[in-house]
Structures are given as structure tokens and as C-alpha cells.
């Protein structure tokens, strides 16, 4: 059977470990759904595309792996946007797919006309329309790489006729499409932080999205310093794996940091005594 652009996209997602696609089907997504049907990926149907985007955001935050959601032409894809802000705000790697009407309808005020790339510009780190089979491999790679690099939303619009068209080429360097490596701070910065900690009277550990993947280290630090911790983002597994009540307090906006710092300092001073 001839491989289509939809097959190429689904095949790439399969190779990088995507297990689910959250979405609500529609005419322009039919070729994508047919490719999913013939793959190992499970299609998770939802009742509203915002739910699909929130599900993908949640999955990406819990696993650190790329999660995928999709909506069909016009209202289907516009519904994705609100849910995607959760992924962009919490730095979760999500690929959002918008189906679109066949290209021959574009520019004719055809029913359900939208410009998804304009609409998704704010929420997405990368947004592009795939207009030809020849363009697909590089753009698919670029989108997924952007979602992982920035940890955020990448968005692709694919007109129905492009989804159906015969694939050209192949997505290269698929092995590079994975969570980005953690970056080690410089020795000087670490020494300076240790110096400040030693000099401080009371300490509270504030953990944002940058603490992703450092649950054990955070716990050791918190225990050793007898310091309370406040979670601002989702350092996955911190609360769930908590053994000894090392005070995961809550999530809150950064603007409230100052008052929290005072309260938490008193709290941790009391504990130290």
C-alpha cells in the first residue's frame, strides 16, 4: 500500500514512542485516523478538543515524552487552543495537529475557513502548514524538535489533500527527537550557591519547572537542610513519592513569592528548633 503523508507522520510518532493521539475526528482528519487505525497508536476520542489538548498536556507533564492532540478543520482546531495554554505554561512537550480543508478551497471564504497558523502563533513555539509531501519530512522533524527543545507546544496544520497525498522522502534523524538532556551548571555557580546556603539562617527550597527530573536530589537537599519545599511547577513524582512529609506545600503564582517566603521561613525555622 502506498505510504501517505498521514502514514509518514503516524509512523514517525510511533517510532519515537507515542502511544496515544487525543482528538475528535472530522473530515480533514479522516486520512490521519485511517493511518492511526493501521498503526499501534491508540486513538482516544474525546467530546471536545479542549479536553484533547488538556489530556495531551497532562500526559506530557507526567511522562516527559511528546504527547499528541488533534482537531479538525475550523472549529475543531480552534477548540484546541485554550487547552494548549496549559502545555505551554507548564512547559510540556505537545504536538498539536490541525486538519484543514483541501487546498483548492483556500482563499474562497469556504465554510469553516480559519488561518490556524495565525491563531496558534501565541500558544505555540512553532507553527507551520504542510503544503506539500516534499515539505512534510523536514517540517515534521522541526515541529517535534521544537516541542522537545523549548518544552512547549508545536503545531502543524495539514490540509486533507496533503494528508492523503503520497509521501516523499522520510523523516531523518528520528533518534534526535527525544527529551532534551539536562544541562549541568558550572562549578563556579554551584560553589556560589553552596556558599550562600551556608551563610543563610533559614532556607526554603522553591522548585519550578526547571526541577523536572530531579525529585531525589530535591528531596535530599530539602532533608539535609531541614528546609521546606514549595512547588511552583510540576517536578513530576515529588508529591506522590513523598515518604516523610518533606513539606510539598502547594503551587502558586510567582507574584506571591514574597509573602510565601516570609511564611515559609518562619515555618522552617520553627521546624529547625
Amino acid at each position, binding site marked *: 500500500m502506498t505510504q501517505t503523508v498521514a502514514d509518514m507522520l503516524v509512523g514517525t510518532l510511533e517510532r519515537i514512542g507515542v502511544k496515544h493521539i487525543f482528538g475528535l*475526528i472530522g*473530515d480533514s482528519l479522516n486520512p490521519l*485516523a485511517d493511518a492511526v*487505525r493501521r498503526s499501534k497508536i491508540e486513538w482516544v476520542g474525546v467530546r471536545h478538543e479542549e479536553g484533547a489538548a488538556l489530556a495531551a498536556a497532562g500526559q506530557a507533564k507526567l511522562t516527559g515524552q511528546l504527547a499528541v492532540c488533534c482537531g479538525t478543520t475550523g472549529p475543531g482546531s480552534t477548540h484546541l487552543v485554550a487547552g494548549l495554554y496549559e502545555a505551554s505554561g507548564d512547559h510540556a512537550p505537545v504536538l498539536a495537529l490541525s486538519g484543514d480543508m483541501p487546498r483548492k478551497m483556500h482563499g474562497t471564504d469556504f465554510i469553516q475557513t480559519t488561518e490556524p497558523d495565525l491563531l496558534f502563533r501565541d500558544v505555540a513555539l512553532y507553527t507551520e502548514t504542510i503544503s506539500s509531501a516534499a515539505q512534510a519530512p523536514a517540517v515534521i522533524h522541526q515541529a517535534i524538535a521544537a516541542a522537545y527543545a523549548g518544552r512547549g507546544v508545536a503545531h502543524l496544520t495539514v490540509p*486533507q489533500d496533503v494528508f492523503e497525498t503520497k509521501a516523499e522522502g522520510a523523516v531523518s534523524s528520528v533518534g534526535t527527537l527525544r527529551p532534551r538532556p539536562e544541562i549541568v551548571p558550572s562549578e563556579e555557580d554551584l560553589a556560589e550557591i553552596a556558599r550562600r546556603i551556608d551563610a543563610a539562617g533559614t532556607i526554603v527550597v522553591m522548585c519550578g519547572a526547571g526541577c523536572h527530573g530531579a525529585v531525589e536530589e530535591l528531596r535530599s537537599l530539602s532533608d539535609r537542610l531541614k528546609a521546606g519545599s514549595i512547588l511552583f511547577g510540576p517536578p513530576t513524582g515529588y508529591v506522590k513519592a513523598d515518604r516523610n512529609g518533606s513539606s510539598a506545600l502547594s503551587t502558586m503564582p510567582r507574584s506571591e513569592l514574597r509573602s510565601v517566603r516570609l511564611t515559609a521561613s518562619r515555618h522552617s525555622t520553627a521546624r529547625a528548633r
Partner: protein
Amino acid sequence: MLMCEFLTAVHHKLPVKVIVYNNSSFGLIPLEAEAVGLPAYKQGIEFPNPDFSALAPACGGHGFRAMKPGELHAEINGALKVDGPAIVDCVVTANEMPNFPHLELDKLGNYAVAKIKEALLACTGP
């Protein structure tokens, strides 16, 4: 209308009467797949439905249900007579074919191919 806005109608005491043509399916979506020669994808198209006539009183409105053609008049009249929002859940056949949005000769061929594929899939599984 979004389903949650039935509660808005109740909230604001709006005399809105909602008729659901309940075919328990996304009727047009399978047809659009078949028009391009693809078998309808059951996993993406089939959803469980709520009992809309029970949903209405749960929201503070009135619920009615017509299962057979002969029941339709009485149920709609009932909905029109009550004060405030009401839902009439009218059960229609899922197999009734919607109109092709654009009817072209090649779509008929594609439709036939899709139907053959669906018959084969029914035997072989996905």
C-alpha cells in the same frame, strides 16, 4: 449549542425547547471518510450517548423522548406546554444516510470502495 448551555437556559429561565435528532452517531463524518474511499473509523466516530430525556430533569428542565414516529406529536406537544427549558430526545435511525455536501462521480466510486473495505474489516478486524 453546547450541551452545558442547557443549564444556562435553566439558570436564566429561558423557554428554550431543544429537539435532539438522536442517531447515536456522527452521521456525516463516516460519510466524509467513505467519500474519499476510507472505511469509517469506528474508534473515532462511535461514542456512548447520555439519556438526554433524563439529562434535562437532572439540570432542572423537562425531558421527553420519542422512540417511535407515533409518539412524536405527543412528546413535542408536552415539551411546548411545560414552562421553561425542555429537551425532546427523538430517536432516529443511525443508518440513515446524510446528503453528500458535494456530489461528484468519483465520490460514488470511492464510497463503493469504502463499503467493500468496511465489509472486509468486519470479517478480518482492524
